[in-house]
């Protein structure tokens, strides 16, 4: 079974064509620093929500959000 991390990275690859993720450390960088702009972010969040049938609250997504944070938020919502 595909892990949440792998699934989010697959979504990122599909939705953000300019994203550059070279290593694990890039998961902790603000999205803009790894080539994901505010519009790509909307698409990524929507696809994660649809994939896991969750709703990621707006207040969780600040300007410095990272992919690891999105994975953690989604993970918590899936568990609950």
């Amino acid at each position, binding site marked *: 079974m595909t892990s949440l991390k792998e699934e989010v990275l697959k979504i990122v690859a599909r939705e953000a064509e300019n994203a550059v993720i070279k290593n694990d450390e890039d998961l902790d960088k603000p999205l803009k620093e790894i080539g994901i*702009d*505010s*519009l790509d972010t*909307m*698409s990524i*969040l*929507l696809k994660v929500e649809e994939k896991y049938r969750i709703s990621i609250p*707006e207040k969780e*997504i600040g300007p410095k959000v990272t992919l690891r944070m999105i994975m953690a938020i989604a993970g918590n919502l899936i568990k609950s």
Partner: protein
Amino acid sequence: MIAIEKVACYIPQQFESNFDKEDIFLLDRDFIVNKLGVERVSRKFSDEETSDLCLKALERLDQPNLLLKEVDCIVVCTQNPDGNGIPHTSAILHGKLDLPERCACFDISLGCSGYVYALSIVNAFMESNGLKSGLIFTADPYSKIIDPGDRNTVLLFGDAASVTLLREASEHAIAWKAKKFLFATKGKECEALNNRDGRLSMNGRIIFNMAIKDVPIQINELLEATGLRHRDIDLYLFHQGSKYMLDQLARNMNLPKEKVPINLANQGNTVSTSLPLLLEQHMHSPGLRNILLCGFGVGLSWASCLLIRHGE
């Protein structure tokens, strides 16, 4: 049978370039051109009121056989009316045009879904009252309420106005008959686009989610209700929210890009005028039989209808 005979639009020839704002908002050219799709936004002149924008759209209608004294109703779709909304802008326009007293006037308060609603309302109003000639105006100059420091809105919204002439269709003239309307509202999320204390504010993610999730459902319902398939639709005229939103919508619905025109670059998202702007551009193209219109935004509200070509 009441049908759309002609559409004309007015875009104020005063612009703010988004390229001039690259440094202020930390933007790059690629984002402006390929994501927002808006290179400049139109701004009304300071001496232009909403009703003046409507008048200028009417000046461009260029319909020699339309006698204003014969117009039975005028309707203005706006959420940024003249003054503070009393009197209604359609009445102000009525006065400026010196129309006869028997001409009905009212405003419709809706944003990006407003044009589709207005087509339905005015069609029904004219048919039920035996009216022969009506004008729908759209004019929602967001520059009245835009916050120049808000990158979510100032780069996106432009000012424009339109007029649509609805008349009893003659046998031979080309006209577009609206058939089957669908409407939807998600009032619990209405704050996503609001004017609080005179300043526009938008939660782009909520609007984006509506466009990508809810709009396709309504369009498929519309096709089912009319017995048509996607291949029967010659053009999908979607509200021009942003290029990215339209690209994603087309991609998620597997629509060919050539059937989903985008015309944001030179004036921006003009709210309820974005659909008539597209319609003016495309309604006279040869070979078109079925056009689907869909407006979505403030409310959250979304509405769709099918236009069928009449006459040759």
